[in-house]
């Protein structure tokens, strides 16, 4: 899908749908939103809908950063303390590495 050929209203609708969709635990969707609409929002010369698109892109970026922070924290904690948690650690694990921790 080429954004160039879409009329502005449709771009806005698409951006909004991607933004709203990201709330369903989909930070990747927010990432796609930011990357895809970045040019539209910040580089292109202004047009009516651009303000709203900018807002969506910004909020998607905020949401993305939040998720990145949460995930990084959790992963760090898990990787570090997994061995010490014993049984709980194992039940949380999807794959358990071999060898001594």
């Amino acid at each position, binding site marked *: *899908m*080429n954004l160039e*050929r*879409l*009329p502005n209203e449709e771009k806005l609708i*698409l951006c909004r749908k991607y933004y709203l*969709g990201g709330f*369903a*635990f*989909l*930070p*990747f*969707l927010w990432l*796609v939103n930011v*990357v*895809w609409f970045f040019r539209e929002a910040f580089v292109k010369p202004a047009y009516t809908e651009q303000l709203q698109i900018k807002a969506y892109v910004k909020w998607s970026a905020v949401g993305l950063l939040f998720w990145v922070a949460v*995930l990084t924290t*959790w*992963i760090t904690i*898990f*990787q570090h303390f*997994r061995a010490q948690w014993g049984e709980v650690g194992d039940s*949380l*694990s*999807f*794959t*358990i*590495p*071999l*060898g001594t921790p």
Partner: protein
Amino acid sequence: MANNAEDVENNFMQGQPESAAGPEPRQQQQQQQEGGTRLRTRGGSGVGRGEGGGPEQNGHPPAARPAVQEAEEDEDEEMTLKYGAKHVIMLFVPVTLCMAVVVATIKSVGFYTRKDGQRLIYTPFPEDTDTVGQRAVNSILNATIMITVIIVMTLVLVLLYKYRCYKVIHGWLFLSSLFLLFFFSYIYLQEVFKTYNVAMDYFTVVIVIWNFGVVGMMCIHWKGPLRLQQAYLIMISALMALVFIKYLPEWTAWLILAVISVYDLLAVLCPKGPLRILVETAQERNEPIFPALIYSSTMVWLVNMADTGGPRRESAEETQEAAPEPAESPPPLSSPQDDGGFTPSWVSQQEHQLGQLQSTEETRRQIQQMPSARPPAEEDEEERGVKLGLGDFIFYSMLVGKAAASGDWNTTLACFVAILIGLCLTLLLLAIFKKALPALPISIFFGLVFYFATDNLVRPFMDKLALHQFYI
């Protein structure tokens, strides 16, 4: 698998009014779906607009037209070639990427080469038999069952299409891609983690798979960035190829490759072939075939000039992979779904010259041949790309993956080169014949020849040389 019918489709569309054709009204309604027609340069043709203002010239002023028209004919020849090379490259990259992913996985993750004794229900006969003869018979039976399943699926698909059961088809494709994107990628991720001995918790995995799957479904079936969609198609083709490599026994796999190439050839080229019927039906109805199963290298935009005045778009992409094992879908065709109902024709300059300003109700897909300095006008159409069915990706990758699994790098590279050569030749034939062609036969044939030759002749030779430290 189904996806094969790969009709590598070349979407060279003919632009315009070939000026050379003399002053008849150019309302060429060629409903082409597949047939790519010769490419024409647009330089020099104008687009007439019904009542929307003067015709827009695409780069050459009207005065220069007569001279340009001569040049157009010559340019056409060149353009055909130039395009051909570019399109070949446009297909090389995804095919190479898919193969690279499969080879990398095969070489690193042991899961996909380990025979766990599990088989697909389509290949019930085991290959670890006592005698070679028994093994051969079993593999032949397996291949027969598999190909029968594929033929049946293709026929079911053609029937569904003929009787307009679109919902069923779409639902089926949706479910297939769902399964592929979630389940198989979950297994893939698990195996990769096991291989690299990484601990991973359920939360992260669930979040990752959920994101991957949902965004994949959106990109493939709905709207998403083109590059991301292409990436997803490559990934699901690779996943499918890996599944085949794991679950098909050795001899069965090679036999299936050979048989499916033959089937592809017959299904696409024979007058009563199911895929050909499918394509022709789509052509008659003037509609796009499936929003799935096809990798398209660019997006096509069609512009309707007369009525709406605004750009109307047609999504050429939505490709999807169909066919996880349980749902072996029939070979997809790569018909230009972007054809849907548009019968393009530019109002020719002829008309303009003759003073007829016919309103163009249609637009034509064209390959943009505009001089680069000129900004694209509203009527311009995006460059059409080439389309290749996902089944082709799968089988190419499967061949190279099997070569990587059982042979050394010589064999793998040889097969890789063979497949690319085959793809080039297929595209060349496509440029010559301009209709949907099966993309499997030539490549798979070369691939098989190279595989067996390299494995049995070149490899022992190289090994002996290395052993004796004899450099040539």
